[in-house]
């Protein structure tokens, strides 16, 4: 089965013969030069096209070669010498002539990729840089992660962390003494907590006046959705935004800012029935 190389060779051999001796049809004019561009397809997979069913019918009138040839041959003895040379002995493992299903699978994958890319200008380089970027990004992420740094947190610019002696896990708004707790938070200059308490208090008021149906696992937007009166809805929406920025957004607020928000809450209370 050393034909691998030898067969390729044979084809080339014959191709070259043709090159030398075919004649250009309209030979009456021009010099006696015959010039061609020869094109053969030799090798393996990757060419573009689909799997199995991609048969295109060529136009009917295909001109086939019938020109007179003068054969040229490779030196038989030399070829015979190559045949006995073990370097050109393609027996042994991997000598399989056809393509395995695995190889065909990959051929199909690459066919699909190349034919897709052929339709994108500069598709190859775009894809290359895209994957390079992804790979480098992933590497950096992995290194930072394993070094114990939060790679995403770096970009967010954390606000000053404030210790909150407070747990928000289970807050039943019907069991909290809001006025006392808010007072306590303000006296400790813990304005963020105060805002949270005010917000919870606000929820309790809405719940008491049956404007919302309070449940511990509902989201703020769910309550907002339950409100029907437009001005209430708008004000509550504003309060919700303020609260979420301050509490979840880790914004530290000072006394002055708190004052504004506090009056907003008070304002809202007066608007309730």
């Amino acid at each position, binding site marked *: 089965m050393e*034909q691998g*190389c030898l*067969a*390729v060779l044979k*084809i080339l*051999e*014959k*191709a*070259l*013969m*043709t090159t*030398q001796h075919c004649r250009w049809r309209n030979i009456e004019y021009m*010099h006696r*030069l015959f*010039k*061609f*561009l*020869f*094109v*053969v*397809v*030799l*090798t*393996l*997979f*990757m*060419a*573009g096209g689909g*799997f*199995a069913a991609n*048969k295109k019918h*060529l136009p009917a009138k*295909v*001109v*086939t*070669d*019938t*020109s*007179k*040839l003068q*054969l*040229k041959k*490779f030196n038989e003895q*030399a*070829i015979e010498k190559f045949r006995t040379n073990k*370097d*050109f002995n*393609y027996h*042994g*493992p*991997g000598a399989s*002539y*056809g*393509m395995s299903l695995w*190889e*065909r699978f990959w*051929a199909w994958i690459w*066919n699909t990729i190349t034919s897709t890319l052929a339709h994108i200008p500069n598709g190859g380089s775009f894809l290359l840089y895209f994957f390079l970027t992804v790979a480098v990004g992933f590497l950096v992420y992995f290194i930072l992660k*394993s070094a*114990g740094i939060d790679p995403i947190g770096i970009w967010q610019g954390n606000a000053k962390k404030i210790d909150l002696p407070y747990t928000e896990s289970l807050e039943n708004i019907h069991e909290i003494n809001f006025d006392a707790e808010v007072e306590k938070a303000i006296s400790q200059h813990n304005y963020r907590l105060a805002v949270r308490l005010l917000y919870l208090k606000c929820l309790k008021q809405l719940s008491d006046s049956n404007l919302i149906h309070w449940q511990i696992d509902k989201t703020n937007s769910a309550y907002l959705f339950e409100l029907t009166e437009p001005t209430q809805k708008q004000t509550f929406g504003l309060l919700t935004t303020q609260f979420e920025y301050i509490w979840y957004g880790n914004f530290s607020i000072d006394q002055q800012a708190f004052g504004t928000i506090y009056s907003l809450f008070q304002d809202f209370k007066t608007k309730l029935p």
Partner: protein
Amino acid sequence: MRSLRIYLISGGLLLILYIIAQANRPKTIDWSESLIDKEKAPYGTYILFDRLKDIFPGSAVTAYRQPVYNVIAEDSVANASYLIIAQNINEFSKPDYEQLVKYVEAGNNVFIASEYFGKTFEKYLDIETKEYLELIGNNNPVHFVNPALSPQNHYNIGKGAGSIYFSRFDTLKAVVLGENAHHQANFIKFSF
């Protein structure tokens, strides 16, 4: 951190195992398409390069690794045959093509063997190659069409190489020299 270390160590061990396994694998035939003139594997071109003078007696053989433009325009090769054997000719530019046509028009011959001819050839010669992949059996022997070259002799070049064919070409300009078992042309000639 502890679990991460376990993953890293086991990953590293697997990688080392894989490398050892690969290194100890029995030497298989290298089917990679190197097409290098010193390569003796099936897709090397050692024999062709070695025996070129059998078919071009008395001629000088020069190997080039430069773009076509540089070979023709700068080295002024004349009265010659130019063999290009490449897996693909993607990097073939318009100046390359113009030089090549000029070179052919001056009476030289060009032979190109490739799977994929790239944008330039597709545009100027209106050709396109595709691979005809079959799910079962992949025997696609090739043969010449010229009656003088015994078209009944089919050459199996293996590894699906015969399955790559010209899915499009200008039938008014091109002459088919060879085709595969499915009568798909895979060897065509243009005259300038």
